[in-house]
């Protein structure tokens, strides 16, 4: 008996040693908010990330160190320092808030650690402030909205009233839309920027928008604000006369359920839609639903693709910070959202943008794709990678 136990223990120890030597090849710091207003997004990204590692059978090849950025720049900065200096990670993945990305940019660039941005969309991060070490697989604010301006003008919308929360991303989204919409012959007849995070009652603004009698309203809202906005837009009876358009975050699968029937008929543009009819996406959606019992949102895909680009880089033989950074910008594959390439000029993702309408599907809501703009690429906007 004792012999057997000894042997068993020995075997276990040997096995664990072997596992240990095979594991921890690449150490990854996941810098996501797990508390505060963006916690739901952090969770989606984390779920998508872990799923991609497991799907590739490479969960053992990566050691994950998780830190809560709280979506606050000073906290995100402190946690990024900890991950890079103390935990010695080979790559950092995550960052939901653009403000956090802006805060850590110089530190990441200076310490030459590859950062895979899984959400934050500020245009400068892959524009004037781009870095060889910062690769973005999510989207840029301009990338999501620019195609929508052209698309709406082409579909007969002439006069638009625009609304967004009053912070950097809100302005960038509306500016990108306005630029392409006016270039295509449309006119933005009015815009309101609502106090960010403080506006729950959109009634006053909706009344203003209605009085301006536009052909359509175009907005960017996300999270709780998106839910309130879509519901209130409907309850004021505006949807019948003035169709609602927006950035796809407005009717993200993550909260469209909370919006309910108010979201029906809202048309938005985004880099991922779960009803995309490709074999890659169908397999992804089925696997995600089986694991988490809900359809994946764009945030889950961003987490998934963050892991995919990392896996591709490691599979290509990259080891250590410098090599991974080098390999990341060469990654290209077809994933759930369609073809995905990292632009060598800016390190921003090049991807399709889908225009989709939220439609009723029995009692539930689903997304109907009504337009596809292929391989949308941002201009360098002053980016020089070196």
């Amino acid at each position, binding site marked *: 008996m004792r012999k057997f136990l000894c042997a068993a223990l020995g075997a276990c120890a040997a096995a664990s040693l072997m596992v240990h030597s095979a594991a921890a090849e690449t150490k990854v710091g996941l810098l996501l908010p797990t*508390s*505060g*207003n963006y*916690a*739901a997004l952090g*969770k989606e990204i984390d779920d998508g990330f872990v799923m991609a590692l497991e799907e590739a059978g490479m969960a053992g090849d990566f050691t994950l160190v998780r830190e809560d950025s709280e979506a606050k720049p000073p906290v995100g900065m402190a946690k990024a320092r900890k991950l890079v200096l103390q935990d010695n990670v080979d790559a950092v993945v995550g960052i939901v808030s653009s403000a956090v990305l802006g805060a850590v940019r110089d530190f990441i660039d200076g310490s030459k650690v590859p950062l895979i941005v899984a959400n934050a969309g500020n245009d400068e991060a892959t524009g004037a402030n781009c870095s060889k070490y910062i690769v973005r697989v999510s989207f840029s604010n301009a990338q999501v909205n620019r195609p929508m301006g052209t698309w709406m003008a082409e579909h007969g919308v002439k006069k638009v009233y625009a609304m967004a929360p009053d912070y950097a991303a809100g302005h960038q989204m509306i500016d990108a839309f306005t630029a392409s919409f006016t270039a295509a012959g449309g006119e933005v007849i009015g815009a*309101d*920027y*609502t*106090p960010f*995070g*403080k*506006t*729950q*009652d959109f*009634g*006053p*603004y909706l*009344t*203003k928008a209605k*009085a*301006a009698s536009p052909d359509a309203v175009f907005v960017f809202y996300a*999270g*709780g604000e998106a*839910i*309130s906005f879509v*519901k*209130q837009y409907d*309850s*004021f*009876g505006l949807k019948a006369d003035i169709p609602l358009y927006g950035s796809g975050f407005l009717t993200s699968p*993550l*909260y469209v*359920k*909370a*919006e*309910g029937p108010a979201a029906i008929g809202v048309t938005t543009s985004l880099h991922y839609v779960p009803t995309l009819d490709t074999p890659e996406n169908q397999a992804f959606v089925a696997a995600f639903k089986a694991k988490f019992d809900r359809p994946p949102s764009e945030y889950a895909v961003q987490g998934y693709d963050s892991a995919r680009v990392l896996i591709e880089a490691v599979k290509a033989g990259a080891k250590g910070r410098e090599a991974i950074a080098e390999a990341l910008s060469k990654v290209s594959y077809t994933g759930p959202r369609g073809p995905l390439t990292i632009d060598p000029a800016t390190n921003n993702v090049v991807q399709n943008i889908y225009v989709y309408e939220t439609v009723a599907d029995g009692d539930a809501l689903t997304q109907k794709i009504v337009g596809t703009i292929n391989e949308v690429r941002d201009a360098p906007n002053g980016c020089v990678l070196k």
Partner: protein
Amino acid sequence: MVASIDFWLTQFLNGLQLSMLLFLLSVGLTIIFGLMHFVNLAHGALYMVGAYAGVTAAASLGSFWLALAIAPIAVMAVGMFLYATVIRHMRRSGPMNQVLVTLGLIFVIVDLVRIIWGDIALGMEQPAILSGPVELLGVVYPAYRLFVIGVGAAVMLALSLVLSRTQIGAMVRAGVENDAMAACMGINVERLFFAVFCVGCALAGLGGAIAAPVFSATPSMATDILIPTLIVVVIGGLGSLRGAIAGSLIVGFIQTFGAVVLPGFASVLIYVLLAGVLIAKPSGLLPARG
């Protein structure tokens, strides 16, 4: 600027609706404060619990009206629990300790809500009879918002009648004026405090449940609503029902019309007003104690 009467009437209703929601919240806070000298920052968290309780009750029972009845009771139960475990022991420990403890309670309650209901915002359907717009005085306005205005006005009326016409109201007023003397006159002040605290919690729960179909329930609503509510209480005057009414109307209308007339300053206006009131009348516009 758009100058049609319809436009301004709609904005007036918007202001009224916001005022009523603020009133449901601030009246509980101000009376608890006035009567018990207790700063309950967790009041906003109770509002959030009310919203979640409403969402859950509506989803499981399938009835908005039942949810509207259950949410205040559920929140009152939470309030009783807090009273028995924490607040009762903090009654005489001074405002700084009370602020710290109830601020801590916000974090505890918010995290409990996140554990139970998750981070993703939850929606609540409006009852069929109140969904969609109706026409009032030639203006098309959401029926549900009119309902919110109605409920707020009804609570306002009921509270003023109770406070001014009944014996309980007289006891509460006596307690606010001078609790030691009220106790000498044979009023069981502690029991009165407890009753008032429960009513305040129930109103916060009602506010949460009634707001959920318009705003949806999110963990951030606990802190989002706290600051406007505190501003209402400070502007109106601590402990006074009339102050809470005046304060919520002022804050509601300034926020609404500020957003329309001076959009760039909408979020600052209310703080300017607060500063102005604190300089001119430090005890609020209509303080409970003369």
